[in-house]
């Protein structure tokens, strides 16, 4: 008798609505209602629009970080990559390189940092990604310090400020770029063979290798993409600050990873969706903004966000145990 194994699970309405992303959406709406109730200034188009501009810069890195974490890897060097590419750009500009070229070099530096991460990870298989990126985290930040020697650099041309502060009509420029990247990364993860490979490797790297998936190549591409997106963050963040310094984007890696985790991306690999991470970005960003609007002090904000993360991890754990 022939046995048919479906390549997709049968549709189940209950399953569909039980997904983590729906719960996130409910919490997201809840946070918005709470903010509205707490501050009369919250539900204002212009305020909300400008609030998103304040946290979207780091959101660019969350998109590739979802890929990295689905691979069951992690990249903690991203903030240092932001610093190095930003500092190189500023230094070149100060040495007389035209800003347009400096921007391109910023992207090249970030991409190269990511490529080096990927290469080290596939070459030294006995080292985990956390160790490799811990080393490059120190290395990249160190080079940034060597270049600028603890100084700040800035005075960029007028047009560069547009990245972080400009609008297209009434919509922030950074928002448009983010949405474009989010769509590209979402399609890449969920609609392409490459994305399927990423899930397969995260679930079982050995089986993937034996099935002919180019594991090493996929990993290098994912880490290179992460470096590239860190450089995109560097551009927007540097523009927003109008200047840069070697300790820019300090601790961004933790915030980025936290957003991905809250978005339902499992640190054990193989699980997670792009949309979850995107909801999580806005959830954390707007929650922080709302708490800031009623002037909750910084420690309490950290406690609240920390509590949210613990709940997220606990919940995904409950889900996994049940479905196992």
């Amino acid at each position, binding site marked *: 008798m022939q046995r048919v194994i479906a390549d997709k699970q049968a549709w189940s309405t*209950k*399953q569909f609505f*039980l997904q983590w992303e729906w*719960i996130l959406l409910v*919490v997201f709406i*809840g*946070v918005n209602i*709470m903010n509205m109730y*707490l*501050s*009369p*200034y919250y539900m204002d188009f212009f*305020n909300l629009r*400008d*609030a998103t*501009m*304040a*946290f979207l810069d780091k959101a660019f890195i969350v998109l590739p970080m979802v890929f990295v974490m689905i691979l069951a890897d992690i990249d903690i060097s991203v903030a240092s990559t932001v610093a190095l590419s930003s500092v190189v750009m500023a230094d070149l500009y100060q040495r007389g390189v035209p800003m347009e070229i400096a921007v391109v070099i910023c992207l090249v530096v970030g991409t190269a940092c990511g490529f080096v991460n990927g290469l080290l990870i596939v070459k030294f298989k006995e080292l985990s990604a956390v160790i490799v990126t811990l080393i490059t985290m120190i290395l990249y930040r160190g080079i940034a310090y060597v270049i600028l020697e*603890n*100084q*700040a650099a*800035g005075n960029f041309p007028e047009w560069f*400020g547009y990245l*972080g*502060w400009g609008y297209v009509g009434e919509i922030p420029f950074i928002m448009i770029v983010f949405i474009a990247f989010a769509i590209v990364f979402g399609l890449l993860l969920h609609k392409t063979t490459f994305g399927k490979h990423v899930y397969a490797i995260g679930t079982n790297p050995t089986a993937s290798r034996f099935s002919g998936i180019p594991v090493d190549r996929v990993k290098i591409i994912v880490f290179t993409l992460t470096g590239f997106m860190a450089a995109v963050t560097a551009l927007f*963040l540097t523009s*927003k*600050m*109008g*200047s840069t*310094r070697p*300790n*820019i*984007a*300090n*601790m961004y890696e933790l915030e980025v990873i936290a957003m991905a985790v809250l978005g339902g991306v499992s640190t054990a690999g193989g699980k997670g969706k792009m949309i979850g991470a995107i909801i999580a970005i806005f959830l954390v960003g707007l*929650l*922080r*903004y*709302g*708490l*800031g*609007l*009623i*002037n*909750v*002090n*910084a*420690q*309490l*904000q950290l406690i*609240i966000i920390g*509590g*949210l993360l613990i*709940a997220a991890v606990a*919940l995904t754990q*409950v*889900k996994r145990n*049940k*479905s196992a």
Partner: protein
Amino acid sequence: MKSKMNVKKMLLTSLVLLMSLSLLAACGSNSTNKDSTSNGGSSSDKKKHAIIFKNTGNPYGEKMMQGFEQVITELGHEAILKAPDQPTAEAQIAMIEELIAQKVDSISIAANDNDALQPALKKAMDRGIKVLSLDSAANAQSRMVHVNQADPERIGRTLISGIAEMIGGEGQIAILSATSQATNQNIWIEWMKKELEDPKYAKIELVKVAYGDDLRDKSVSETEALLKSYPDLKGIIAPTTVGIAAAGKVLTDKGLKGKVQLTGLGLPSEMAEYIENGVCQWMYLWNPIDVGELAGHTAEALVKGTITGKVGDKFTAGGLGEMTIVEDGDGTQIMLGDPYKFDASNIAEWKDVY
């Protein structure tokens, strides 16, 4: 397989999550901002004055905010006190956005970065918010006036003559600063270097400027690194309250009293122990409460229109007396006065004050 139990459990958890969130937020709003809802309209005479310090958990900053709050409340206005959990410009930019959204009347800020706040503060000024910096300056384009604790030249020169006296006029010295971008620190360090050019300090060598980032543990490890790298080190100048207390602790723990001298800018309450045990013979500071109060009066005067931040503008800052705005590079500033010396003879009376 998913059971009914599972559905219930997840719904329950998200519900609990939501409730605890709103509860926490409500607590926070009650404690920090008592009448935000009753004072929704800004039509009344009651103005909203905000202050942003560098980071939380800094007793010096808390005193400053306390002075600011006191003046603002006495004048019948609402004070909003804010400080990020990390001493970064990124975090301060987000806070400025939050204050713009709340339509405050003035923002007083101790800047974590001289230049990086310019776009955000300019945006605030474009919306009609009066902006001033205090303690650590934002650049001239991003503020209307700067409230300076004391004359930076006097601070820098006084610290050098102080350490020179302690070490007997010769030997290696080092500086333990806060972050490398802290504007005030860098100006004092520049004046220290200028004072060192005087021939009478020819035998004193400044070997290193270390950065403890105003974090206690980093300041401790930077001090330890200084002692290790320069075994002949004679003195440390720490022009930051976090740094000098950390250095005082390291020197006390290692029994280096008398071998390595320490001076700088410190809080009497934190430094009393080290002044009394002789590790730090004396140190300097102004009163951070006064700095906060002066900023409060300045904010009020700017909002009222008594002053605009121009050189020569005069106003009365409550008990602090008549203040005049003077030039500061390409911007303007108000100076509080001279640094004050704390030693074994007067520390006992000051340590309970701040």
